[in-house]
């Protein structure tokens, strides 16, 4: 399965990543290589087989609706790249 350049660009858009020419080539090569492995999976017949999400069967883990302590605002702002008072700031989002 040959990964096309447009496909690669589309996926990079979704993943919010940018690549230069060289890196693009690298990524496409890697994707191609990986897909060769994936194709092995087609050797197996999986008709009627259920999917496994968590490897050990788990169901119905819930939390009660009780309020727990929140974080201190200072702890949040200490790690933020840019803030205005208690808000985190990003460049203006214009639709």
């Amino acid at each position, binding site marked *: 399965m040959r*990964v096309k350049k447009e*496909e*690669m660009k*589309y*996926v*990079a858009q*979704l*993943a*919010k*990543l*940018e*690549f230069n020419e060289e*890196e693009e080539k*690298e*990524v496409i090569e*890697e*994707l191609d290589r*990986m897909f060769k*492995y*994936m194709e*092995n*999976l*087609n050797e*197996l017949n*999986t008709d009627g*087989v*259920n*999917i*496994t*999400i*968590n*490897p*050990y069967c*788990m169901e119905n*883990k819930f*939390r009660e609706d009780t309020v727990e302590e929140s*974080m201190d605002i200072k*702890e*949040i702002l*200490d*790690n*933020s*790249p*840019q803030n205005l008072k208690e808000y*985190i700031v*990003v*460049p*203006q*989002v*214009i639709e």
Partner: protein
Amino acid sequence: MKLTAHEIRSMLKNKEISVEEIVRSYLNRIDKFDTILGAYLYVEKEGALKRAKNLDKKIKHGEKMGRLFGIPISIKDNISVKGMQNSCASKMLQGYISPYDASVIKRIEAEDGIIIGKANMDEFAMGSSNEKSAFKLARNPWDLSRVPGGSSGGSAVSVSASESVMSLGTDTGGSVRQPACLCGVVGLKPTYGRVSRYGAVAFASTLDQIGLMSSDIEDCACLTQCIAGPDKNDFTTVDMKVPDYSRSLTKDIKGMKIGIPKEYFEDGLDDRIRKSIEEAVDVLKQNGAEVKECSIPLVKYSMAVYYVIASAEVSSNLARFDGIRYGYRSKSFKDYRDLYFKSRSEALGMEVKRRIMLGTYMLSKGYYDEYYEKALKVRNLIKNQFEEVMKKFDALIAPTSPTTAFKIGEKKKNALSMYLSDVYVLPANVSGMPAISVPCGMVDGLPVGFQIMTNYYREDTIFNIAYSFEQSTNWHKMSPQISEV
């Protein structure tokens, strides 16, 4: 001179040494050797000493000693420790200080363990040599020109070189077992759901487990005892009581049925490693185990399954690293959309970006059914096959790595070798079953290890078999001589 936690404990109890002296000796060793070894990305010097002094007071007052009393433990730099960095060896999280503790850290501290520093790793746990760390190289203490393995390279180095007594790492695709093997220490990946993942930066939600490294099985069992168990903060932990693992520390394995999957011992495995493992199996036989060959034909698909699931999940788990609430934010961007592109592209390494691309691709329109869902179904088949095999055996033996540690900068060898290094370790992650790597030999001055894998939640059997082997040999006592440069 290598000390185990249980040895330190009796020294403390007999008042032969103080906690402060212990911590100082480890800090001195780090000072002396870590510039060349590169095991640590951060050393908590002040905090560790402060804690040591408090613990010495506790002894003075005759207070109860927690199970990990006074033991210096290093933590892979992707597990949250409050007030310390959690860089994941990435530019993306350089400078980030975690405002909360992972659940396992809370449990270690509740047992009076001492967090001595954050260990080096491959960026975001992607890699098997620690060469993908954005900050520094880590070196194998047995041969400084070689890699320690990865992604929990720093953890393995710190235990192997006695820069810590034990270490916590993460194992998504062998990342605790493989470096443990290459550095000659014990490395355990518990059953999926045995240890809480809360606070460990997620790579693949259904494959990750926090793993442990130590010098011997008794230490490993002790640390596992402390951190295992259901956690209300992680809904993927299982409500199963943690057995008393100390009861498993006996040489008696009479009647244990051990399987040797033939798929693991075909071509490609270094002959001398093969020999070491065969010798290890002989020891088990001598100790009373019944050994038989078996077959698990589906193991060869575990690689494809792993890569599909792991990259798909990581592409989503790493989306939160966008430079908005924390972490690296680019200085040059056009608008808010560009902020994402620039921050992520500038701060993430190429290996990480490749995996994200692969995962995003796999999940994107048109490919989901073909790749992702297919992989989940094959995962089911693999799981079922292992469960069938485990009905007949108490444990399976496998190599951990087809070769010993390779040279730093050496491009991965041949395709077969790369394939094998995956196939030995991945099934435990894909099936979720527990597996441990135990040192069992030396080849050309480099450590060799073998794996023991059991059914779900049978870490007790793992400890039993491993202890039986270990106590019949001396491999666990070996310690590298680090050439002072």
